[in-house]
């Protein structure tokens, strides 16, 4: 049994050698974040479903906005983190950045799926169709496919010493679609509406509707960081399994060798 060569320096051998390596899937930080996420989501449910008014045009279907927009933003951030971590993989060549890139991509995929699902649920009653091939929807579907491909590439290259490098290049390439998705409604004519909430200029939403949306955005971001910590720690521990398995195999062979060293003297003397 051989340890999988990832072509990367293992975390303990690099600068962060003295820092204690994760021994569980959660940390104090992740537990606090988990509670905050849960509380904010609860508040978001209260505001999104009870306190905020139905929309003048769309009635209650507008409430899907409170999940749809935050999930899109979290997906952008998650894939942005994958791109940044991928650049760091190419530069620093450390296992930590490689695992952050992979973990963030997986979470981004989940949020992209949530975004597409809520968008389709909204589209049917409002637009009249679940799906249409406009630029926003097409580039978002492409984003999902690109990152599913990224994860598939990681699996396909498992054990390859150059996996981290190739996956980093793929991660950066896939993330190019993020700004394209974001700008698609201004670059092309789309069925999808433009930006509702603007950092610069007037937002097309206000009052408790805007507040509900902001709560869910913060909840989404907290949830993302929470999941990222846990997913990273699981990935880190999964990498360690190969190392410990290697050590265990050596220890097993050593104990065999000791046994068989003791056994032959008796066995051969009795056989003769």
């Amino acid at each position, binding site marked *: 049994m051989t340890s999988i060569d990832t072509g990367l320096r293992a975390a303990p051998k690099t600068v962060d050698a003295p820092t204690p390596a994760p021994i569980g899937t959660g940390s104090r930080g992740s537990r606090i974040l988990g509670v905050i996420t849960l509380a904010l989501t609860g508040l978001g449910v209260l505001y999104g479903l009870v306190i905020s008014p139905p929309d003048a045009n769309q009635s209650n279907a507008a409430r899907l906005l409170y999940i749809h927009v935050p999930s899109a933003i979290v997906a952008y951030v998650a894939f942005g983190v994958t791109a940044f971590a991928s650049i760091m993989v190419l530069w620093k060549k450390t296992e930590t950045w490689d695992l952050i890139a992979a973990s963030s991509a997986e979470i981004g995929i989940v949020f992209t799926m949530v975004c597409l699902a809520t968008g389709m649920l909204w589209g049917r009653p409002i637009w009249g169709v679940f799906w249409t091939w406009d*630029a926003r929807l097409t580039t978002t579907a492409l984003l999902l496919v690109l990152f599913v491909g990224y994860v598939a590439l990681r699996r396909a290259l498992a054990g390859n010493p150059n996996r981290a490098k190739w996956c980093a290049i793929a991660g950066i390439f896939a993330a190019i679609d993020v700004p394209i998705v974001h700008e698609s409604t201004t670059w092309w004519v789309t069925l999808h509406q433009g930006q509702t909430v603007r950092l610069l200029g007037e937002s097309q939403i206000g009052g408790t509707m805007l507040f509900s949306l902001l709560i869910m955005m913060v909840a989404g971001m907290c949830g993302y960081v929470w999941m990222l910590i846990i997913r990273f720690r699981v990935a880190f521990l999964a990498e360690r399994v190969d190392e410990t398995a290697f050590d265990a195999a050596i220890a097993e062979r050593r104990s065999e060798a000791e046994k068989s060293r003791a056994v032959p003297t008796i066995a051969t003397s009795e056989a003769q």
Partner: protein
Amino acid sequence: MAVSGDDRVGLDQLDADGEPPEFDLTPREPRPSDSGARGGRNRRRWIAAVVLLVVVAAAAFLVTKALGSATDYFYQADQAVAHRSDLGTQRFRVQGTVANTPSAAKLTENSQKIEFQLAANGVTVPVIYTGSDPPALFARCEPVVIVGHWQSKADDAPFIGTQIIIKHTESYTAEHADRMKSDPECRVTPS
């Protein structure tokens, strides 16, 4: 470290004929379970490679889609009129607002057919829609995208619609607030 596996025997285990077993001291080959694990890993890698291939194909399909219809999702009603001769009777999407001017307020509806005027940038297009029930939000002053084609190349030919999609705006306003429409032909319509 505990030693597991049934290929190892202790001193207290004797063969059926009472003889102590021969001990093989040559380096051990990987146990079947090891090669099995490696086979499983290879199989997983193959599955991942196939998934990757499917994903690449899907990406290629989506890119072609994006380069094709998605970038020209619709023509505004005035553009559709301007390109009437090029478009002929081919299928495309036209966007505009369901007109509300006194002359164009002809939203006749029966089980089979809806006739209305579609307006954009001062140009109105007569639309004859035949298809399933339009979306619930379909109404006067509502921005819509109609899928269909020109009936003919004639200047007064209507647009034959087969699907109505609502082009929703990005603004969200609470119910009961005063509804203001920015479209010049649908100025203020109290809800």
